[in-house]
């Protein structure tokens, strides 16, 4: 099937598609100029701005310009920061990466042990409690989780700062909020793949050799159940970046998520475009590498 060539072609097409959507996004409303200028702008200001941004050119020309500049990392100047949009986005990126990576770590620390536990202790009372927690976690709006944590640990108990970035204490609540959001999915995958592996013959063999149950579970079973677990963790990076948009806004965390929401409020669309493209690029890269890894680790999958 020429998997590698097809995959490469597909990556290029996805990059192209991402930029195309980012370009047409601002033309959805009809006139991007009216979108970006305040309603009290005069006719002369509108025309001057239209000319300056190149919106008076034919759409096809604008599109080609946008693509050729985007390839070079040029998304135009942010209307609010008066700096290249890409630069503004990249400055905020470390904060977002810090938050999402820490949240991933937390979610794995919550989901993997609990998932294994509920697979090993099937139909026990505590397994049912884990299931209840999973359903609650899946059903809570992410910003509500954040507000409730804020109410409890910030306002009532005064243990943690309610917003901003700086110390480890600042990181805990937003990261935990995100972790609660993604952990249920990971937990379910851990549980179901562990259940599947624990039925296999080699587990029975390991047990009959007289190995300690702990060794059987953590060494033999977990190792063999790890492919779907790693896959789901990888795919969740995209979900986490989306969740970061809301979480960063709740906790005033100065990352790309908060930046894009503010850019939308202030109609700073060159900046919105840069945020959208960069975040989508990260997710696409993540999806492709998880996919490639999955194919590599799992010889059963050939193509499709």
């Amino acid at each position: 099937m020429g998997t590698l060539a097809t995959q490469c072609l597909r990556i290029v097409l996805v990059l192209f598609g991402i930029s195309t959507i980012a370009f047409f996004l601002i033309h959805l409303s009809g006139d991007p100029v009216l979108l970006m200028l305040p309603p009290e702008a005069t006719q002369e200001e509108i025309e001057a701005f239209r000319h300056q941004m190149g919106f008076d050119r034919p759409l096809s020309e604008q599109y080609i310009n946008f693509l050729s500049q985007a390839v070079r990392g040029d998304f135009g100047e942010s209307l609010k920061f008066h700096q290249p949009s890409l630069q503004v986005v990249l400055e905020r990126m470390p904060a977002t990466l810090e938050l999402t990576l820490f949240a991933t770590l937390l979610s794995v620390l919550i989901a993997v042990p609990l998932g294994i536990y509920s697979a090993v202790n099937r139909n026990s009372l505590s397994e049912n409690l884990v299931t209840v927690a999973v359903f609650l976690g899946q059903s809570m709006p992410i910003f509500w989780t954040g507000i409730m944590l804020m109410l409890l640990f910030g306002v009532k108990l005064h243990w943690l700062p309610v917003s901003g970035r700086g110390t480890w204490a600042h990181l805990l609540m937003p990261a935990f909020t995100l972790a609660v959001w993604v952990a249920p999915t990971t937990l379910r995958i851990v549980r179901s793949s562990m259940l599947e592996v624990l039925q296999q013959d080699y587990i029975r063999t390991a047990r009959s050799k007289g190995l300690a149950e702990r060794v059987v579970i953590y060494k033999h079973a977990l190792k063999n159940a790890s492919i779907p677990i790693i896959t789901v963790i990888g795919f969740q990076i995209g979900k986490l970046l989306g969740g970061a948009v809301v979480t960063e806004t709740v906790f005033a965390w100065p990352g790309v998520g908060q930046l894009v929401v503010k850019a939308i409020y202030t109609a700073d669309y060159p900046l919105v475009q840069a945020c959208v493209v960069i975040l989508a690029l990260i997710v696409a890269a993540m999806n492709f590498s998880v996919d490639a890894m999955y194919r590599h680790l799992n010889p059963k999958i050939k193509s499709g």
Partner: protein
Amino acid sequence: MNDLGVQTADRPLAETAQPPVSEWKRTYRKFVKNPVGIIGLAMVVMITLMSIAAPLLTSHDPIDVHLEKKLQPPVWQEGGSWEHWLGTDEVGRDVWARLVYGSRISLAVGFFAVVISLVLGTALGMLAGYFRGKTDFAISTVIDIMMAFPFILLALATIAVMGPSLLNMILVLGLTDWTQYARLVRSEVINLREQEFIQAGYALGSRHWRIIWKHLLPNCLPSVIVLATLAMARAILMESSLSFLGLGVSSPTPSWGFMMSTGRPYIATAWWLATLPGIAILITVLGINLAGDRIRDLLDPKVD
């Protein structure tokens, strides 16, 4: 358990002679037996009835402003009264009335967004899986592109440009969340096509659309329904997130997400404003997830 035996004894033959009907019936009976599914369904029915019978459940108008009665606490707290048993918000509107009417927005967005994405995703997945080749490559690439965008980011940016309204919310959620159906239906159709009863259809000279409509679609339906229930939960959560960020239905109309956003600044003094709408969302989404999970167990154990 042996439904068929019982049925032939005391029901007309015509009814038992149709296997698809009795299969749905059997599923229904199994569903009724498990308390978890019933509890979930009861929660959904309760919220649905609440949205239909809203005017009967409260005598207050959800958008009536009474500044002199602002920030009254719920009845069980000091200063609360049965007049406004869940308190009032920052401009004196009755919180219970707003919660009751707010259910309409959540359910409408959840339902219609799912209908749009289900139809679109199933159709595209069917085309890709059935015709393979270039059609498949094109559709799969579009899916890859869509999956690269964090769902909320795409929805957020699109609504910001198109302007916040109920219709735009439904359209945007419907048009961005169809990829899962497409992926699922595509892979099911690829498997189904090779099976004998489909091949027999070709041998008998059936046309494409007949095979799709009569054989492939009914076989994909159970998995699609399972996805749809979970997608409805997600759409409701997404609506609340977008409304929370101020991009939902316009201001006086009560929406649970927007209620939390306006209540958040009062978190230290009037906790009920941001807390109660979250509980309403939690009940709705939890109900859908519980019922959906049972439906999944019964209809399609493969999907996870």
